[in-house]
């Protein structure tokens, strides 16, 4: 349910990028998201059109890069893949690990339309 708040934050950020580059609109938005960010990509995709309605990105495609969950073991030093509720080392089983990927919630990149859009604003 908080995905709408996240979608609104996303729209604000992309809007700033469009301004920064004097572009007309955004055509593609890529978000890097990890399962431990606490944001569900499907729900964010549903909330995005609501937040983007009437903006310069309302026709933009929203795409996701899914970050894998990976941990670095502080005991044996190995990087391994882990499950969302089992962040233990995949090699030695120790729970003294550090998450190195999987909780990202990043605006990774934006594609901006550099040519006038098909329906230019007057």
């Amino acid at each position, binding site marked *: 349910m908080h995905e709408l708040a996240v979608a609104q934050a996303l729209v604000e950020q992309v809007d700033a990028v469009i301004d920064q580059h004097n572009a007309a609109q955004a055509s593609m938005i890529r978000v890097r998201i990890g399962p431990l960010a606490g*944001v569900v990509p499907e729900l964010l995709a549903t909330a995005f059109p609501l937040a983007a309605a009437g903006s310069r990105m309302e026709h933009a495609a929203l795409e996701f890069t899914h970050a894998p969950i990976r941990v670095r073991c502080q005991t044996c030093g190995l990087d391994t893949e882990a499950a969302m509720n089992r962040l233990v080392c995949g090699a030695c089983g120790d729970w003294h690990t550090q998450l190195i990927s999987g909780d990202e919630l990043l605006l990774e990149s934006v594609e*901006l339309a550099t040519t006038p859009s098909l329906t230019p604003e007057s």
Partner: protein
Amino acid sequence: MCDTCGCNLTPGNKHLAFKPVAKGATAVSVLKGLLAKNDDQAAHNRAHFDRRGILAINLMSSPGSGKTALLEATLVALKDEFTCAVIEGDLETENDAERIRAKGVQAHQIVTGTACHLDAHLVHDALHHMSLDGVDLLFIENVGNLVCPASFDLGQHLNVTLLSVTEGDDKPAKYPVMFRAADAMLLTKIDLLAVLDDFDCDKAEAHLRNLANPAPVMRLSARKELGMEAWYAWLREQLAAQRARVAVGQSRRPAIQSDGMKYHRVTA
């Protein structure tokens, strides 16, 4: 770090930045935390607390796990030691703030309407309605919810997550985002363990460790005053640590966020 000169590109994230694009479009790499605006406000709140030497604690749990009861007992017990203040978050009613005020402690109620969590801006607005003069400890009682509050930094120094024994000992496994964020986990209402045969405190702790979380686990009952001394001792210790940090111009974010940042989190 900034968004203009490329200094937020590191060897670790460089491969994300340059991608082929369709003709007639340019790709712009951003790599900015999606909640950067909330995080900026949170940093502002935290700086505000640090300037005043206040320790801010965010209490999170399901509805009905005893956050307000814990506060009532804590505020009475620490009355002569520290000055406390409380921000209450609920969808509706002023009930919780009234319970706190009945203990003679300043409380501000945030009524979120339909919002399922507090964010840094709501907390900032609340601070404008409060007098923080002489306050040592600020408790922020988040909206009862094991999902959404975990994703929003409020400017707190520590997250305390409550799990009542009537809920089920596998809650940390079911809500890993929330429990991974805990700087301390409190197992509450332990006086009821005698009549419950399905809650195992050791299992709850094991589920927390499976999230690679070293946070202390305290077992207590606020109503029956069981195990409360360990909680008070932890608060005293944390306040002393906060004062020591403030004295040397340092601050602290809840452990989960600062750890992740070292590896891969890029914020502006």
